[in-house]
């Protein structure tokens, strides 16, 4: 515990040494990231750079609590998600790739001496997109869902593809108030080039903050807000087109709120 008279001298000493205060209350909490490219071969983008950039860019939002409730950013370099971003953040920036897994067949053969590739790799693949004939590994890459399992088991032989970026997922939180939520897909793939200064991510974030800031209830996290207003309404307000990657399945109930435009012809 800090004695009251020591508080301001401590704040002064901390900040003058380069360590800022902030990141509590109904504001942007201090963003966090995985170890990323500093010590991991699976960082699909520079998590440290992105985290630092976003933190510095939104200093006002980090220091002044004017949101309905807290907002957490977490930056994970790959779908292993070592920072638990999908469970612990309102905005999960999760590294992924779009092209083929890089396979070193000689190294696969080396692993085959200790790893039962058929049962430990092929059978555990969620989409069964890997085949092994005892000599070489064949991956049906368009069917790969980037789960990381095969790469995790054989890190010397398999590497993620080269066309890299991130999936943006939003709305995760722990139980209080409306129950726990995992983040859900918002943008299936976003390039995370440091040269871009992460402009796309910043624009999306500001659009969400504007909407949620205006219409969110007190202590309502963005995931709860989206459930209250509906994901489709939320997307419409943000200006993002709906894509099938956002849902596990289309609706199964017929209670659709139709817009008037469905009767409009294209001018013929």
């Amino acid at each position, binding site marked *: 515990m800090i004695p009251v008279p020591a508080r*301001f*001298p401590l*704040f*002064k000493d901390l*900040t003058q040494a*380069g*360590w*800022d205060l902030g990141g509590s209350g109904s504001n942007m909490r*201090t963003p966090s990231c*995985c170890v990323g490219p*500093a*010590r*991991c071969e699976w*960082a699909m983008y*520079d998590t440290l750079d992105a985290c*630092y950039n976003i933190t*510095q860019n939104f*200093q006002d939002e980090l*220091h002044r609590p004017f949101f309905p409730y807290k907002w957490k950013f977490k930056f994970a370099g790959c*779908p*292993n*998600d070592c920072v*638990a971003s*999908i*469970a*612990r953040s309102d905005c999960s920036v999760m590294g992924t*790739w779009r092209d083929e897994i890089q396979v070193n067949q000689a190294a696969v053969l080396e692993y085959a001496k200790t790893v039962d590739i058929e049962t430990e790799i092929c059978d*555990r*693949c*969620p989409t069964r997109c890997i085949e092994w004939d005892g000599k070489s590994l064949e991956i049906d890459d*368009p*069917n*790969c*869902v*980037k*789960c*990381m*399992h095969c790469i995790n*088991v054989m*890190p010397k032989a398999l590497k993620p593809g080269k066309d890299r970026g991130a*999936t943006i*997922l939003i*709305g995760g939180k*722990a*139980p*209080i*108030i409306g*129950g726990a939520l*995992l*983040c*859900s*897909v918002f943008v*299936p*793939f976003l390039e995370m080039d440091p040269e871009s200064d992460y402009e796309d991510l910043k624009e999306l974030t500001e659009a969400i903050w504007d909407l949620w800031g205006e219409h969110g209830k*007190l202590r309502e996290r963005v995931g709860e807000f989206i*459930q209250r207003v509906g994901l489709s309404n939320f997307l419409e307000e943000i200006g993002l087109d709906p894509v099938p*990657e*956002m849902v*596990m*399945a289309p609706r199964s109930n017929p209670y659709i709120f139709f817009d008037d435009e469905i009767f409009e012809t294209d001018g013929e």
Partner: protein
Amino acid sequence: MAEERITDIGPPHYEQFLPPIVKKNYGKWDYHEILKPGVMVHVGESGDKLFTVRCGSPRLLAITTIRKFADLADKYCDGYLRFTSRNNVEFLLTDESKIDPLIAEVEEYGFPVGGMGNGISNIVHTQGWVHCHSSASDASGVVKAVMDELMPHFQSMDLPAKLRVAYACCLNMCGAVHCSDIAILGVHTRAPVIEHENLPKMCEIPTLVASCPTGAIRPATVDGVNSVEIVEEQCMYCGNCYTVCPAVKINNAQTDGISIWVGGKVSNSRVAPKFSKLAIPFIPNNPPRWPETVEAVLNIVNVYAENARKHERMGEWIDRIGWPKFFELTGIEFTKYHIDDFKHAGETYTRTAQLRH
């Protein structure tokens, strides 16, 4: 004095804390390998090798311990160490010959080396009775008691897959235990007791009324004081009201306790991320060593270790064998409390990054 305090500067840039070998190989790591429990090597495309020694450390550290860690880092690692997201301390070495002497000294100081691969890493936990207002149980004490028994799995890699144990002392779940293989969670079991005389002085009544997710709190005049009343049948003991109003006491030394949840995961590997599901609804608090909680966790770990297939996390194993079999094998009683009665919309949203690009 105020003008001497700087603000809006953000944290110091991370680059100044990176070891030279990390700066040189930044983004150019080729692969990694676990050499033995608690020791791994990252090999750069340059051929450079960075060794990591992982040690379990308590989440609440004395400054003397931090200084000791720093001294060890000075002695063996050119002054570089880091803390993991599960509060382990990792020493980063470039000289392979220093690994074993470092381990010997760390262990002599009383800290275990391990927590890697198919074993149990550190228990992520909250503050508990140390300094949290809403805790239903202790955190550090329960974690210490449980981890003492799980230590063999921290120091080896003898489990089917990773097993992540997490602890949170109330439903706020600061430890995000809701996606752990085994979650130990403090629970309140009774509606809050209202201190009517303090309430108007400490709390905003409209905010307090609005804080209740089930609408169980209503404004009321009690003994001439502007206060609130609680419809006890509607209370689900979440404690959100207590967070906004300290005069609505949710803590109760007699009726607070612990629940156990299983089968959650965070990573996207193989199957999508999952929430932990209820295994044991209530175990009474029993400090200082919580023997019933320790035994319950050990039982689940042992049954999982005996029955799961290689690479199968707790939740994947349970999904394969089914929940009835889980309750049968563990001997845990299935009760009415296991059946969910909380509305949860949005089940059709994609809550995974498993996508075809």
